[in-house]
């Protein structure tokens, strides 16, 4: 994870003294007391429980006897796990690019408009709405006998089972609805902080709008993209709440997510599998984050 870069202004590498690791460590020590209180809490409430989870992944369910890799084997052979992982990955793979692209386009257009303020606020609004409050409204809109199906039938198109086969897209839509505003805002602040002088200078040299976009704006937005990716990825897990409140613990196949599985395992006392799967998920995220960092660092 690199330090954030000052937008459009390259770091002054000549003045930067090359510090050795040892000196870095020493200098860092003075920041330790800042870190300590928070870190203790994190260790106690987050890291230690997870380590305990890892320990449990090698033990049997209730009797807690050592069983080696049995739980892991059970998890890898478990079809529900495969389904859940596939769905979760599919969801992330669809949503993230979609959200990023759409919000960027909107942000770019908005950055040219004058009365963008109001539009920004409106788009941001869904983020403030708690999930539980919307459940009833979603049902009224999207149920098999809901408003939207009513309109579709009126237009002669027949009902769409939003809570059945179409539930995946319903969730994607809900995700985008919620996160569009914030993502647009992030893009906008990134775009707006690019000094307009740069683009003007380029234009006098004969560059077109598109070239401005591709060669000046986009590169400068790298750190913004990074933040957006992380936050959107984080929020993609939150969509479970909607799925659970709308469709319960055994929803349609397409939206059977990782959290559903964990929740059901817990209710069925399949604790060994839960622990093993938790370790697997952690590993996957760890690898993904490490890869992301490598890609970022390399193109820097």
């Amino acid at each position, binding site marked *: *994870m690199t330090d954030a870069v000052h937008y459009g202004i390259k770091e002054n590498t000549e003045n930067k003294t090359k510090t050795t690791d040892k000196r870095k460590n020493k200098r860092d020590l003075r920041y330790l007391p800042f870190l300590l*209180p928070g870190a203790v809490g994190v260790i106690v409430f987050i890291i230690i429980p997870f380590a305990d989870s890892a320990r449990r992944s090698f033990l049997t369910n209730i009797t807690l006897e050592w069983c080696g890799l049995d739980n892991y084997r059970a998890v890898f052979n478990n079809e529900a796990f495969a389904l859940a992982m596939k769905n979760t990955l599919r969801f992330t793979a669809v949503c993230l690019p979609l959200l990023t692209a759409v919000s960027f386009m909107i942000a770019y257009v908005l950055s040219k408009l004058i009365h963008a303020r109001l539009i920004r606020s409106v*788009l941001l609004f869904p983020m403030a709405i708690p999930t539980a409050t919307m459940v009833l409204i979603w049902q*009224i809109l999207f149920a098999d006998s809901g408003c939207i199906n009513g309109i579709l039938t009126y237009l002669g198109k027949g009902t769409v089972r939003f809570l059945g086969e179409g539930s995946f897209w319903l969730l994607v839509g809900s995700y985008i*609805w919620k996160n569009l505003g914030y993502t647009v805002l992030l893009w906008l602040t990134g775009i707006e902080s690019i000094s307009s002088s740069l683009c003007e200078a380029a234009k006098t040299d004969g560059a077109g709008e598109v070239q401005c976009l591709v060669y000046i704006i986009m590169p400068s937005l790298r750190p913004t993209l990074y933040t957006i990716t992380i936050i959107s990825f*984080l929020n993609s897990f939150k969509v479970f709440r909607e799925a659970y409140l709308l469709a319960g613990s055994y929803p349609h196949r397409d939206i059977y997510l990782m959290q559903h599985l964990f929740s059901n395992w817990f209710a069925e006392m399949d604790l060994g599998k839960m622990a093993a799967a938790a370790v697997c998920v*952690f590993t996957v995220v760890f690898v993904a984050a490490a890869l992301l*960092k490598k890609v970022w660092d390399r193109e820097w």
Partner: protein
Amino acid sequence: MLVYIFFAVLCAAVMLPVIMMVLLSLNDETELASAIMPLESGKGFCAPDPLPFFPTFSHYKKLMLYTPEFYRVFFNSLRNTAVILVCQVLFAAPSAWAFSRMKSRHSKLLFDMYVIFMLMPFQVTMLSQYLLLDRLGLMDTSAALILPAVFSTFPVFIMYRSFSQIPEDVLDHARIDGAGEFTIFLRIGLPMGRSGMLAAVTLGFLDLWNMVEQPLAFIKDKRLLPLSVYLPMIDKGSEGIVLAASVITLIPAVFVFIIGQDELEAGMISSGIKE
């Protein structure tokens, strides 16, 4: 011009569910029942009237005057959220500051771990949190909701971003003038990183106000439940109350959103231009 029309439609579509919710909550019993009936009976389609014929505040009245539990759950939510946010700032701000200043590989590794744990959904760590809270004797208390949330690494991540935009030179100047690290943090770091802190508080509020899984898992006592979990527990028959409660749940979130938005945007823009 076309662009504006496009955005007008987009905004309308975005706001539609909320507007619908508010309008429906003003419907009286019979209108509401007829609007929702297709859901139960499976015949016909829901077609609520855009504007209620007999708008009424009766649901709100019933909720606020005859349902004492509502105040309790509202207060629980408010109290939990406030306590968590204050503590989060207390613990996360120094941590974020430290991470943004520390350059060693160890600190970077620790920060990466923070980020990864931030990304873990609740269900994955649910098992062990249960056990920990149980061993500490905190099950079925508000502390079970508050403590793990206080140490969430999400605010650290957000604040880190804005803290790391502060150039080291400014700090060096201060050090030359003889300021200690803590003073630097208080006098320079905090003010300059204000936007990040506010962003973390705003986002944190919206997330905590919405907390569903933890109360369901850790809390048994009805009196400790927060508002976000109370909503799904209202009886099926009283949709009017559900809608009224939903609208009221919405209000603090909107408040925070209004307050936070200005600062969020202003802070972000200004910190970008600053050298």
